[in-house]
């Protein structure tokens, strides 16, 4: 570089002035027109929050469920069609099971989505594993919901 194109050479004087402005450096990860729309939501933040809020509720629902099914009143030995009929005669336990079904499935599915994103490296593998996960999740949630709402104690 010659002296003519470099306006200032002294240590404490700026290299740049009005006629020779410094190049603009964009802030890292700045949103531009080229940024895809999908990164502009807070989906991952809400997912993170959901894992924690649903986890707190699931402690009560799932541990309570296990206590009832495996510990109280004879443990597993008491379980059978008649036992289920007795429990789902009460809207309270229907609601308990319904909320537990939805929260546990969504919490588990979102957790598994993270696990797939971590380990499946090829884009194609990721995509299909997640499709399989979402299909299984929707199917399970719908089936479980249907079973609770259409349960018939006099099926025979």
């Amino acid at each position, binding site marked *: 570089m010659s002296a003519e194109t470099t306006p200032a050479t002294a240590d404490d004087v700026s290299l740049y002035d009005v006629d020779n402005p410094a190049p603009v450096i964009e802030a890292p990860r700045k949103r531009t027109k080229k940024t895809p729309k999908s990164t502009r939501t807070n989906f991952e933040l809400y997912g993170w929050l959901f894992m*924690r809020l649903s*986890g*707190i509720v*699931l*402690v009560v629902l*799932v*541990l309570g469920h*296990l206590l009832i099914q*495996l*510990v109280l009143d004879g*443990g*597993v*030995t008491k*379980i*059978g*069609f*008649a036992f*289920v009929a007795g429990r789902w005669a009460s809207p309270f336990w229907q609601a308990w099971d319904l909320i537990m*079904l939805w929260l*546990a*499935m969504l919490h*588990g*599915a979102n*957790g*598994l989505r993270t*696990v797939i994103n971590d380990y499946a490296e090829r884009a194609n593998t990721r995509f299909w594993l997640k499709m399989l996960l979402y299909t*299984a999740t929707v199917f*399970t949630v719908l*089936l*479980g919901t*249907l*079973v609770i709402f*259409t*349960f*018939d104690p006099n*099926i*025979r």
Partner: protein
Amino acid sequence: MSAGTLYRGREGMWSWVAHRVTGVLIFFFLFVHVLDTALVRVSPEAYDDVVATYKTPVVNVMEYGLVAAILFHALNGLRVIAVDFWSKGPRYQKQMLWTVVGVWVVLMAGAFYPVLSHTLHTLFGS
């Protein structure tokens, strides 16, 4: 401390691995569990038949394993939440992990007889 570069995560890493493994296990169980419960819509006999397998010794022991997985995931999950939301959480994360392990051991000891009594009776007589 000189072991620095050999281990990266120590307890925190292993608790994370265990949290992940138990979470995945519980999810797979739940999938099967909703399918078996759906048999109440088929017939009382179909449901009672599949529930009979839950009462065999081998599956009964697996139920104790499921309890172990859920208790760890639940207790450690509460610890993760405390680390994230409680201002002193990160400082006490290690103490909280040992608390989790301690409470887990106590609850597992307490659950041993209630969960497995059926198997103990069938195997060793009443």
